[in-house]
């Protein structure tokens, strides 16, 4: 069985009994055990539980009760709580934390009959763009192990790229699904804020965090999203919005048809004017000609507040993170220092030992920007700018159906290349952050290669237009083969 098979192909194999879920699960577990020593995609493997779930899935399929995802292996980013399995968020703070309940996403995918193989590596508490900020060590990019896989969902992206698992969950706060998807040559979607429940997804920046998918294709992502999304009464910010148009994509082969609708894609000039990467520019031109060939029109548009998106994001995300992470105090669960002298000592040492450098940097930044005397200058100001950035998008979406940009300014950088320069690292998210601030659905799909490393194309849609995003992405993938190119390392087994 080709480990890079699409979910639909796996479904056909399972339904025709050519392959059982147990066999499929064993196949991917074998790949993980053989290959992951090199890539470090997984923090925790849940082999026993996976085999149990696979057996249950086989029974369901045998009874004719299987759904589209029954028996298909997957892995969760280690930010989603999975009952009975360690959920570390790649932090020493939660190194010994066994989740006492299932996140809504885990519950829904369990319910769909999926088999969870384990938990993927990430930047600690989702703070980072390279997976170098993991307590469990960096994940390596399967295309070139000297390079980072991107972050924070780097383990999820690399695991799909190396076909250690057919599909993974991820989370995106400022680009944490799209940037690693681009770096690893896989497809990744960040749905509209509120589309996927945040319950049981460890919070980094609550007003931005959104769960999503990393997969080989838009078709696979549509299947996953249809199972993960939807209103959840346990998340007050969850959107009570119909899932019908996403479900429609998964029903039959006609689901992705554009039905003759004229599509115009906007090209925001602010994203391109400072682009110094000639190869990327060429790739980008090529993408336009692919789309033009399919009758899609382009229009130059302007998002004038783009240049302030990165600082705005780091003020808001750090502020929210600084208080979201206050609960890790060594009192009820998580890392506690040895023999604390008093309460102050318990707090200071537990948190100093439990958190890594980048997490501490953001807690300090966030604490500073929320302090009396700085709150108005930073937090309140950033909230205002966030509104302006969102308004930019609202305006252009009255003219165009979608926006298209490169996902990142360059392909995956080398491990260690930016880790000494946090600000340069933060600018890796310059193309992905604006859509996050506006809560818009956004997707990265492979669109070319540079120096043997993949490049990603970002598409951004109006709120709750994930279906349109996936249709356009699907159109591209039907006329290109970037998404079916795989790293050599992943194929050797």
């Amino acid at each position, binding site marked *: 069985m080709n480990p890079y098979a699409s979910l639909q192909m796996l479904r056909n194999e399972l339904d025709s009994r050519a392959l059982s879920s147990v066999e499929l699960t064993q196949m991917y577990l074998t790949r993980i055990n053989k290959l992951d020593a090199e890539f470090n995609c997984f923090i925790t493997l849940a082999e026993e539980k996976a085999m149990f779930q696979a057996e249950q899935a086989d029974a369901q399929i045998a009874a004719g009760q299987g759904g589209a995802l029954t028996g298909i292996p997957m892995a969760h980013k280690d930010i*989603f*709580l999975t009952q009975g399995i360690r*959920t570390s*968020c790649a932090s020493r703070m*939660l190194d010994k*934390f066994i*989740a*006492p*309940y299932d*996140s809504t996403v885990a519950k829904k995918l369990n319910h769909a009959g999926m088999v969870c193989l384990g938990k993927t590596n990430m930047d600690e508490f989702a703070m980072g763009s390279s997976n170098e900020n993991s307590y469990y060590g960096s994940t390596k990019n399967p295309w070139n192990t000297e390079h980072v896989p991107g972050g924070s969902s780097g383990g999820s992206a690399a695991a799909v790229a190396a076909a250690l698992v057919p599909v993974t969950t991820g989370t995106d706060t400022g680009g944490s699904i799209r940037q690693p998807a681009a770096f690893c040559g896989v497809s990744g979607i960040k749905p509209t804020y509120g589309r996927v429940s*945040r*319950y*049981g*997804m*460890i*919070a980094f*920046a*609550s*007003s931005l965090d959104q769960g999503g998918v990393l997969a080989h294709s838009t078709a696979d992502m549509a299947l996953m999203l249809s199972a993960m999304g939807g209103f959840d*009464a*346990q*998340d*007050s*910010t969850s959107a009570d919005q119909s899932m019908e148009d996403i479900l429609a994509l998964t029903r039959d082969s006609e689901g992705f048809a554009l039905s003759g609708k004229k599509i115009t894609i906007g090209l925001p000039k602010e994203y391109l004017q400072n682009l110094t990467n000639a190869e990327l520019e060429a790739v980008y031109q090529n993408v336009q000609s692919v789309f033009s060939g399919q009758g899609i029109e382009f229009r130059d548009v302007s998002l004038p507040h783009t240049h302030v998106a990165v600082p705005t994001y780091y003020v808001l995300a750090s*502020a*929210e993170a*600084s*208080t979201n992470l*206050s*609960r890790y*105090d060594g*009192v*009820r*669960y998580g890392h506690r220092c040895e023999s604390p002298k008093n*309460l*102050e000592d318990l*707090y200071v040492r537990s948190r100093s030992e439990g958190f890594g450098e980048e997490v501490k940097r953001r807690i300090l930044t966030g*604490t500073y920007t*929320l*302090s*009396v005397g700085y*709150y108005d200058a930073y*937090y309140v100001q950033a909230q205002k700018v966030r509104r302006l950035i969102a308004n930019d998008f609202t305006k252009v979406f009255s003219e165009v159906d979608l926006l298209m940009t490169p996902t990142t300014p360059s392909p995956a950088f080398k491990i260690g290349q930016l880790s000494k320069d946090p600000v340069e690292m933060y600018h890796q998210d310059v193309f992905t952050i604006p859509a996050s601030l506006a809560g818009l659905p956004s997707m990265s799909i492979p669109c070319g290669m540079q120096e043997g490393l993949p490049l990603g194309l970002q598409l951004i849609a109006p709120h709750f237009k994930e279906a349109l995003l996936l249709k356009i992405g699907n159109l591209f993938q039907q006329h290109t083969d970037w998404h079916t190119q795989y790293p050599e390392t992943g194929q050797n087994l």
Partner: protein
Amino acid sequence: MTWETVIGLEIHVQLATNSKIFSGASTRFGAQPNTQACAVDLAMPGVLPVLNKQAISHALTFGLAINAEIGLHSTFDRKNYFYPDLPKGYQITQFQHPIVGRGSVEVILEDGSHINVGITRAHLEEDAGKSVHENMPGLTGIDLNRAGTPLLEIVSEPDMHSAQQAVAYFKKMHALVKYLRICDGNLNEGSMRCDANVSIRKSGDTTLGVRTEIKNLNSFRFLEKAINYEIERQIELLESGQKIQQATLLYDADRNETRPMRSKETSEDYRYFPDPDLLPILITQADIDVLKKLTPELPDQRRLRFQETLALSEYDANWLTADPDIADYYEATVEQCNNTKLSANWVMGELSAVLNRQELPITSAPITAKQLGQIISKIADDTISGKIAKQIFDDITRQADPSVDVNEFIKQNGLTQMNDESQINDIVDQTILANPDQVQQFRDGKHKVMGYLVGQVMKQSQGKANPKQVSEMLTAKLKTQP
């Protein structure tokens, strides 16, 4: 030098909801530690708050009762500080946009005068857990059962000028929340607690003095004593030329003194900011109209009704309506006996004394309103004397048996007042014969001795004679007979 005291209160009211403000855990009081704390209350990773709608309607009910501005768009903020009883490291509260804005209440003081106390705002927030020190030497335990209990914090203007006024206001708010059925009002279980902001200034000054805040007072008596202690302390400091330090204080009831909290328990900067996990609470006029219709009779309305239709004095009416359970009991008593004044006297006097002695709420009174009403009926129609009535009251409350019928009890124990004139006549005659000295004294004009003679007759009749009748009979006989 004369000083003026200025007091404002922040009252924390635990709202009577079945579950917590942001989780489904129970709010029942007195459970084993940490058995009513779910993943949300424990601030497990990944959990999110979901607002309890009952807490919103309780807060609005309060706002409407004090004619306050209602926050049609209110929001939640995080108040950040570290403490082991605060699992998230922040308290969810309403800082910028509270659900209840400006309002006011009228308070009747002991001396009958009225003051108006402004309400600055009232906002929803979550209670913290508790630190436990009992039975764990050298350790601190954490009980998170209380964490997440919904609170309404009612902030007053600095409109009170004595401990008595502050207590009267606290009592008024206690009455109000019980009437509205938004709080059980059990002070000893911490259902209502207050922080008192106290400052003094020279009489006539218009600027406020430096204030201190006494935290966590949970009884009317402690509130009064703590404020009085603090006023004296502040006056002493200023009169000896020292300055008042702004401080947060705890009241030690055992020593009757206030002392500063450890500095760790106070924090300079709470870094308030809007909680991104919760949406704004949006209230419409239609919501308000529905709640207005559901508002029960308020203490002021009930007091006026007692004054107007039951002909009670303002003092009595105010006393009886301060607690809806007392007012209910009183009304049930009146329904039985139809005597508003005697019922008021007995409820405020004998019954209140018994309840205080036995530390019982009126809902667990050892005598039912029906029984008390029966006793009062028998006094009113002269079947029994006041003295016998007291004896019956004592017997009934001792038995604390609601099935006892007072009329039967009186018959069985032969306690009916002697209204048979001939019977009393005999005892009066015997008494006159047995006390020649006193009789002579009376006839010599020392009329005070009458009390003694009446007492003798009452004693002979085992208290069953009607003292008024006895007195009249004695006077007649002593004046006419030689």
